[in-house]
């Protein structure tokens, strides 16, 4: 068996003249949970649809479980669990009926896994799906996807709108799924605290590009936050090597920098003088620094944004 569960090579997709996914390349090893992070519209769902073979790439290739995504047959698809954004379900059915419907198409159906999962979300099998809370409906959708015992699970924003109890149930379900180390999960989410707990790797997508592909811990250790009190009004900053994002609130100038070295430190001292202070960065701060790039003016940033890539 290949030890790479998902790979993308120069994957690119246009909608009309609109560049939605731009030259994305990465590999996801078997046995890992990878978080796909990005603002709405960054290209996450488009990327996932291409992986699932639901959308053809304009350029480049991608494969799942060693099979090119554009040639996936039903046998390979049955080895992949995929939930679309928004947890589609037939509202008029009961939970048990929807299990029967789903299990008919999967010979490897695992009823115990289904039961355990809906238990965790506090769902009774006889409930009508229409009457369930949003969190419980998500639970049904996850249970339906997982109980076919797939090797690869791709979840598009499964935590959207979930309450704290359902979020915990979701985290536990994902972790139990990959406990044997043979299975792989890719999930997109905006809940950064949950991503930090559940995943071991992150992909950060900004404007269609993957800017970060790293383990969670080294990502945290490589990004640092620098602050100083600036005497001047907000202005264009001279270039700082590794600068991810900078913003000014009142007189306080804050800069997030990846892989800080003497050169970038000297550049910051030139901007700030001796009031420059370093602090470590939390996972949320690091991710938000990258995501903020697309919302802010790019004027003080280098043409090629710094990418963080480790294995």
């Amino acid at each position, binding site marked *: 068996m290949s030890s790479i569960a998902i790979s993308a090579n120069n994957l690119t997709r246009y909608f009309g003249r609109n560049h939605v996914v731009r030259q994305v390349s990465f590999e996801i090893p078997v046995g890992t*949970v990878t978080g796909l992070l990005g603002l709405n519209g960054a290209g996450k769902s488009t990327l996932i649809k291409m992986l699932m073979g639901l959308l053809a790439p304009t350029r480049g290739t991608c494969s799942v479980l060693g099979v090119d995504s554009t040639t996936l047959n039903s046998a390979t698809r049955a080895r992949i669990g995929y939930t679309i954004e928004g947890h589609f379900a037939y509202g008029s059915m009961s939970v048990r009926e929807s299990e029967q419907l789903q299990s008919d198409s999967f010979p490897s159906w695992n009823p115990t896994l289904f039961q355990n999962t809906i238990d965790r979300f506090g769902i009774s099998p006889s409930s009508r799906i229409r009457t369930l809370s949003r969190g419980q409906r998500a639970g049904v959708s996850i249970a339906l996807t997982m109980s076919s015992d797939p090797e690869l699970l791709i979840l598009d924003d499964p935590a959207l709108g979930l309450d704290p109890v359902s979020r915990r149930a979701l985290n536990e379900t994902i972790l139990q799924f990959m406990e044997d180390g043979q299975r792989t999960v890719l999930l997109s989410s905006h809940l950064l605290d949950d991503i930090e707990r559940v995943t071991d790797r992150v992909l950060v997508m900004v404007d269609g590009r993957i800017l970060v592909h790293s383990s969670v811990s080294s990502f945290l250790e490589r990004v640092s936050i620098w602050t100083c009190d600036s005497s001047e009004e907000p202005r264009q900053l001279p270039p700082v090597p590794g600068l991810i994002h900078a913003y000014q609130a009142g007189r306080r100038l804050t800069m997030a920098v990846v892989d800080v070295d003497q050169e970038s430190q000297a550049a910051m001292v030139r901007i700030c003088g001796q009031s420059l202070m370093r602090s470590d960065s939390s996972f949320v701060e690091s991710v938000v620094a990258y995501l903020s790039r697309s919302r802010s003016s790019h004027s003080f940033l280098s043409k090629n944004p710094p990418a963080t890539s480790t294995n």
Partner: protein
Amino acid sequence: MALTIRIVAGSTAPIYRQIVDQITRSVASGELAVGESVPSVRQLARELVINPNTVAKAYAELVDSGFLETQAGKGFFVAKRRQVYSKSERLRRIDESIDQLVNHAVTLDIEPEVIVQRLQQRFEKNLKPAGD
């Protein structure tokens, strides 16, 4: 004794580091005795609802630094050791003092060469044999 580990997401310390630090502290304080077992990777990951690879990374570092040892099929145990803190932890602690020193040097406008030279002198003085 049952080991209680608490982790928080959103801290500046990565989760694996929080685990390393807490086990290190429990060993240093004697709360965890030599030969005592710690929860398995799977058990701790379940308990804390975190990725098992994160726990495995923390345990690997603790084994590397000699805090834990592994016995095939039996799990992880607190190892007998001399140095209480791991190498990276010792470096982290000394870096804190160095940062203070550097900040001080910058505010007092003292050149790095002077600092290095004086540090060297201190070390030489301290390393002289007793009675000299």
